[in-house]
């Protein structure tokens, strides 16, 4: 009876995950777990490597956060337990990532070596490696502006190459890549519009934005908002 009671006390209070989130402490290389209903800090989590540049995506059910660190680290954080569940170093220098809309795949955009790598969201097992080779194929561009799109697709831009690639990862070990070339000079970031239809990339090497209609990617990239 006493044992049961003690065990009962040790159980943390039940809670939902919908208001949990992480804050990256870039210089300290730590993350803070927060809840946004009471606006409280719940825990501080270490061991995520170099977070000088980092970004986060959340699992569909809100239980896990995936942190993409500067040092190429991909860390899966359990928000309910406030702990690191899994961690892999998957590149030398990465910029961010995305989670597929069904929640099964994590895609990471890398600067060094340039490309995108796809992982199983549950286990972080590597599934595919997509080098961002361009031109004569000997150089690899830095990958920027990665985002999820409908189906198991990911869209991203190649900085040095001036290309936008759409990857269909419905067969994650054999992803299909569609390349849109000559989209403009040095795309440096991108996003999908809230209705999920258009991918927009900002250009660094010239003034302007380019837009790809994900319902009709064959039409290529169109210039919008001339600088």
């Amino acid at each position: 009876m006493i044992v049961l009671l003690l065990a009962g006390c040790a159980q943390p209070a039940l809670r939902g995950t919908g208001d949990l989130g992480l804050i990256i402490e870039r210089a300290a290389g730590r993350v803070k777990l927060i809840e946004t209903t009471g606006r409280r800090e719940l825990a501080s989590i270490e061991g995520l490597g170099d977070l000088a540049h980092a970004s986060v995506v959340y699992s569909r059910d809100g239980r896990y956060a995936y942190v993409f660190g500067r040092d190429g680290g991909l860390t899966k954080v359990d928000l309910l337990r406030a702990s690191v569940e899994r961690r892999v170093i998957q590149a030398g220098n990465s910029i961010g990532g995305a989670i597929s809309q069904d929640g099964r795949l994590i895609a990471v955009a890398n600067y060094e070596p340039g490309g995108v790598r796809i992982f199983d969201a549950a286990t972080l097992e590597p599934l595919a490696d997509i080098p961002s080779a361009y031109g004569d194929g000997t150089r690899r561009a830095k990958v920027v502006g990665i985002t999820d799109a409908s189906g198991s697709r990911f869209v991203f831009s190649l900085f040095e190459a001036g290309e936008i690639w759409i990857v269909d990862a419905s067969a994650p070990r054999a992803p299909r890549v569609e390349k849109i070339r000559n989209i403009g000079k040095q795309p440096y970031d991108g996003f999908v519009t809230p209705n999920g239809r258009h991918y927009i990339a900002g250009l660094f090497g010239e003034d302007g934005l380019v837009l790809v209609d994900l319902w009709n990617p064959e039409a290529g990239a169109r210039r919008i908002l001339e600088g």
Partner: protein
Amino acid sequence: MGDRVVFAAVFWVAWMVPAGALDNPVEPRRGELVNMVRQDCGSCHGLTMKGGLGPALLPSNISAKDPEQLRFVILHGRRGTAMPPWSRFLTDAEAAWVVELLRTGLPRD
């Protein structure tokens, strides 16, 4: 040929420098410069200078390079790349000081 370009460039920089700009920066300007290097340069070269969109600028990456050329790149950027010119924000002496800062490594917080 390359030498001549660099020579001409350095000469041009020296000629551009306003009076007084050759003085070494003193506090509180030094603190401002450290902050600028971390935050502004760091947006491309990484908060800890380990590289990002721009190459790593740790002592091991740049100590073998000519400080004059590094200073020139900082002041005037590198055409055709993402490296922008900073001559509107840094004097010649401040750029030289930033090169020294990078060569010795940024102080810990």
